[in-house]
C-alpha cells in the first residue's frame, strides 16, 4: 500500500477511522493528495465503513469541502458508509453555512460515531 501523507488510518472493529495530518486544509496540491488517499479507501481497499475524525482540523477551505463532497459520492457509489466526528465549533459552522450538515452524518465524537456505524 502506498504511504499515506495527508491522512492516517486506523481500524476500530469494521470501521476505518481517518484522521487528518494537516491542521489547515487549504493547499490545493495537498487537497488533491488528500482526496486521492480518501478515494483509495473505498475504490482500492474496498473499505465499507469510514469515520473521518476532524479533531486535528482547525481550518479548511471551500476547495477542501468540495473534495469531501466528491468523497461522499464515491462512498455512496460503493455502497459504503461515511460519518464525520470531532468537528470543532468553528469548522462545524462552515458545514452549517454551506448546509453540508444535511449531506454528511455528523457525530460529536468518535465513540458516538462508532456506536452507530
Amino acid at each position: 500500500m502506498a504511504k499515506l501523507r495527508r491522512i492516517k488510518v486506523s481500524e476500530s472493529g469494521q470501521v476505518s477511522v481517518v484522521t487528518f495530518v494537516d491542521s489547515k486544509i487549504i493547499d490545493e496540491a495537498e487537497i488533491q493528495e488528500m482526496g486521492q488517499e480518501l478515494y483509495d479507501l473505498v475504490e482500492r481497499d474496498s473499505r465499507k465503513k469510514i469515520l473521518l475524525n476532524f479533531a486535528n482540523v482547525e481550518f479548511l477551505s471551500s476547495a477542501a469541502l468540495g473534495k469531501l463532497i466528491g468523497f461522499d459520492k464515491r462512498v455512496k457509489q460503493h455502497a459504503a458508509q461515511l460519518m464525520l466526528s470531532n468537528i470543532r465549533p468553528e469548522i462545524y459552522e462552515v458545514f452549517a453555512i454551506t448546509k453540508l450538515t444535511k449531506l454528511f452524518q455528523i457525530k460529536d465524537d468518535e465513540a458516538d460515531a462508532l456506536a452507530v456505524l
Partner: protein
Amino acid sequence: MSEKAWSWIDHTTFPSRRGAHEPFMRQVLAQLTALGWSNSDLFGIEMALEESLTNAIRHGNRLDESKQVVAECKAAPDRFWLRVEDQGPGFKPQHVPDCTADENLQCCGGRGLALIKAYMTRVDYNDCGNCVTMEKVRAAAEAP
C-alpha cells in the same frame, strides 16, 4: 470612514500563482491580531481572505501568471475592509447557483462565495464582477 481612522492600510499586487496570496494573508491576520480581534472573528476573516484571493487567482485569472491580483486592505480595532481585483472577464454573482439549496448540495462551486457572505458584514461586486469589496464591522460587545 476617513483614511486617518484606519490603524493600518496595505496595498499589494501578486502574480496568479497558487499560494502567491499567502504572505499577504499572513500579514493581514497578524495586523488584526495586534489590533485585538478575537480568534472567532479572525477565523471568518481568514476564510474571506482565502476564498476571495484564491478565487481571483484560480477562477478570475485562471492561474495565468502574467495576470496580476491586486489586493487592498484596511484595518482598525472595530473594522476590516478588503478589496480584491483580478484581470479576468469577471462573473455575475447572482448567476452562481445557490450551493445551499437541497438540489445543489453535491454540486461543486459557490461555497466560497457563500462563506464570504456569511462571515462579512457587507460584500459588493463591481459591474463586471472582477472586483469584490467586503467589510466586517466588529460587534459592539466585542470591540475593545
